[in-house]
């Protein structure tokens, strides 16, 4: 609670494990350390009182007549909203009764083909590293690489149940938590209409155009421009500079037939659409 927000300081966090687990395979217990793989770099703002630029706290008050009483988080209660609109109050003991038992066990649930886990399933990435036994770790990664599949695992951490996918990447184990099945939306219907089927010429042209733009995935090419602009702006303001905003560039929009656009793209495209 409260105005807790990050700052511009790039905290080079000590890459410490956030959890330790144990995966048992054929009687061997492999100790594994879990590390977060995400470095949050989003722009954070603090809430301030406009008049004096003093930081602002958020407090909770009980609604009612008369003086509102401020409550600490510890004094608040949790309630489950029922479908009929009523609430059921739940005590801390009751809530504790439904959380998973504390355990270090990482349970292997299934070994699935990689194609079975379409991109929709993936949530947050973590790394799994050795916990004192590098040989066991390297053997595990090698074994998983040999299967050419993805291991589905289950574990309990921070009072929650998790399911994740373990995949080898660049010789290490990545553990990606997965979404729950009820969060996934089914594919929408996009059946092609027969009269709008592409001609062979259009298909060939499209293939050529895609070919022109083929390249390798280089994530370092892309930057969070918005974040950069905000940082530059506040730093300039701090220096007392006056910042002028330029009107945005007008982007050209194409409007020709598909075939004409494809052909024109190949003519012009080959020159300026080269992978940058």
């Amino acid at each position, binding site marked *: 609670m409260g105005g807790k927000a990050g700052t511009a300081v790039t905290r080079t966090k000590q890459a410490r494990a956030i959890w330790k687990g144990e995966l048992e395979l054929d009687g061997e217990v492999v100790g594994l350390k879990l590390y977060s793989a995400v470095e949050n770099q989003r722009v954070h703002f603090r809430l*301030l009182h406009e008049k004096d630029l003093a930081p602002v*706290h958020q407090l909770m008050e*009980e609604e009612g007549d008369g003086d509102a009483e401020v409550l600490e988080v510890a004094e608040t209660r949790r309630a489950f909203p029922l479908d009929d609109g009523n609430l059921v109050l739940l005590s801390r003991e009751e809530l504790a009764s439904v959380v998973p038992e504390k355990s270090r066990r990482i349970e292997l649930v299934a*070994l699935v083909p990689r194609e079975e886990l379409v991109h929709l399933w993936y949530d947050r990435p973590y790394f799994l590293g050795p916990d004192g036994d590098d040989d066991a770790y390297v053997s595990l990664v090698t074994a998983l690489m040999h299967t050419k599949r993805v291991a589905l695992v289950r574990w309990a951490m921070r009072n929650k149940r998790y399911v994740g996918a373990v995949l080898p990447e*660049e010789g290490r184990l990545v553990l990606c938590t997965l*979404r729950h099945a009820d969060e996934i939306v089914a594919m929408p219907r*996009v059946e092609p209409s027969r009269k709008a089927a592409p001609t062979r010429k259009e298909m060939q042209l499209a293939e050529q*155009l895609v070919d022109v733009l083929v390249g390798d995935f280089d994530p370092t090419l892309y*930057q969070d421009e918005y974040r950069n602009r905000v940082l530059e702006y506040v730093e300039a303001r701090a220096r007392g500079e006056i910042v002028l905003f330029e009107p945005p560039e007008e982007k050209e929009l194409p409007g020709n037939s598909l075939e004409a656009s494809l052909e024109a793209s190949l003519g012009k495209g080959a020159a300026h659409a080269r992978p940058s």
Partner: protein
Amino acid sequence: MPDRRDQKFQAPGRPFWSGTISFGLVSIPVELVTARRKTRTSLRMVAPGGTRLARKFYCSAEEKPLSPDELIRGYELPTGEIVPVSDDELEALAPEKTRDIDLTRFVPREQVSPMYFEQSYYLIPGRGGSKAYHLLAEVMERTGRVGIATFVLREKEHLVAIIAENGVLSAETMRFAGELRRPEAMGIPDATSSTARARAKANAKLVKRFEAALQAKATSTLPLDELADEDARRLRELATAKARRGEDVVEGDAITLDDEEGGKVIDLMQILKQRLGPGAVVKPATRDRTKTRAAN
């Protein structure tokens, strides 16, 4: 792919964004549909008696409550200095409001690690875009490629992967390279290094045992039962059992604070819509509470 016919998956909703995918001079009208939607019921935070809580802002200097329009955002620099930033300034800094998904490169599918994926959307063809949409989807699928693009959504510029699967295009927003840590930073050994390979060879028996143990659990399809939200189920069971016994039930008062909302400003209309369910029409508040109930 999440099949429409499978009861476990939600039905697609209506498109919430429309624009175009552009590559070269080709421009394909498309619309975005949410591909993932949290359905877990969040616990609410209430006062000890079950009554509503209100979130109030207090000035730390004057220790008095503030109204939302007395607030401004501020950015804290490394020096500790705070630079106030108004909504107008942020809007001026926000990316240009185009409705274009600018596709600049097609890369092999296997080069894009799932570590990058953040939020998923389905793309459906907009008016007049059906032929080009299917053309693009087919070519991408056949050549095993995904499109890397940028686009602006809700005032943020996103890096996005356009993925074709079974004739349907999806957009997966991606984390930037700087947002992902490198495993070297944690000192995790690389099993493909020459020293590691040598060690794996020395431990060939162990590798084989691990491989066999993994293969023993091989399945050809994803076990969806394993991906159910067990925590949510148990919580709901606990609450509904208490409700049946008439224990600790408090009359709902339409609006309560979501436990997980943290410091976000509460969008009342949003909460009302959630509580009243899909398809409900939210009318301006009336004094008559029975009207609100009838809509439940």
